[in-house]
């Protein structure tokens, strides 16, 4: 395949602790509040909020997506793309046991306290969704990523 350098876009994934990922990529797919959305070079400038879920990055000339679990945040699309998130993890770094425990804990709490304050409720639900998202991403990510 001929290289088409003009069709690459630089992507940075930033967490409060570190620069999680940086590179020139063909396509990046993230989960916005309204659903999965892909961004390529030349996309209209945008700022969108991201939901808890997976982030997929297609690097140049690769057949597989790089996958990562992210815990919400926002994407800032300009001439380059900056994704800001509270936490990001590659599938191999996800601690499945911890996620499983967090999931069970959140589920139990939600079952035991059905009439708690809304704020607390939302916090626990978010924790549950983060744990579930981690688990699914770890599972699918460990199989070698998704082919295109």
């Amino acid at each position: 395949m001929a290289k088409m350098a003009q069709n690459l876009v630089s992507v940075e994934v930033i967490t409060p602790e570190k620069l999680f990922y940086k590179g020139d990529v063909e396509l990046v797919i993230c989960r916005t509040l309204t659903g999965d959305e892909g961004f390529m070079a030349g996309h209209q400038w945008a700022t969108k909020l991201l939901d808890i879920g997976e982030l997929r990055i297609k690097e140049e000339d690769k057949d597989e997506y790089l996958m990562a679990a992210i815990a919400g945040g926002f994407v800032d699309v300009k001439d380059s793309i900056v994704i800001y998130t509270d936490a990001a993890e590659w599938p191999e770094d996800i601690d499945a046991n911890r996620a499983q425990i967090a999931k069970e804990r959140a589920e139990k709490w939600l079952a035991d306290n059905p009439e708690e304050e809304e704020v607390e409720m939302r916090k626990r639900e978010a924790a549950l969704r983060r744990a579930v998202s981690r688990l699914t991403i770890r599972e699918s990510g460990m199989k070698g990523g998704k082919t295109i």
Partner: protein
Amino acid sequence: MASGDLQAVKRRIRSVTSMEHITNAMKLVSAAKLRRAKTSFEKSNQYLHFITDSIAEIFNNAGEVPEKYLEGGREIHNTCYIVVSSSRGLCGSFNSNIIKLAETEMQGDENSVLLTIGTRGRDYFAKRGCTILKDFTTPPENMTFLDSQEMSTPIIEMFDKGEIDKVVLIYTSYLSQIEQAAVKVQLLPFEANLDPEVMKQNKEVEYEPSVGDVFNYLVPKYMETMLYGAIIESATCEHAARRMAMENATDNAREMLGDLSLYYNRARQAAITNELIEVVSGSEALS
């Protein structure tokens, strides 16, 4: 010179030596901690500006941002000061600098409430009868982003409810290994950044779900990030200040040891000379 005096000086030398060992060890520990804190501070600092830039851009590009977060959106009655101090002492003027700045800021502001991080600031202001909203005593170097989220959530809630109208962050900024300065930053209401560089953007930007939602998400995030950055920076400063203080203490102890051993040697020599004179004059008297 009496031998009792010699004994006392010797004891003094021994105690100063052990003190020197302690301060020297603390210096080494602080230096190691400083190195670690500095790496994490530099890493996060590099990316911190992205979020502040994004907010400035959105503000400048979007017409209908929620006014409550902006400067001039409402009258300021109650101010919340977030004071980042340390939980441990022996770090020179680190804590007193922070407290001094906080006091100057709070002067004449009777309605102010405090949120303190680190025990030193809390103890000082609690003793003086200031209203402390909440205090966090985990050592700053162990704080995570989640902790800073926990801190800023109640503040934003209070701001939304109108219980506080202004949020000021007071922390120590890291200038270099030997220089740190106490600084203040106004977090809320958000000061409009009318930088012409940022202003010029004629491209249409798409916001999703809406400008207001994005803005409402970014403002708390901005606070969390700023707070997290300030805590990390302050922890770095604390270690740097402690390293300096301990280095000074070690130097002083060494200087003192030099003086003391000089005195000790002189006194010992004087005692020997004295004894010699006694022996010589004794034998002279006999002959």
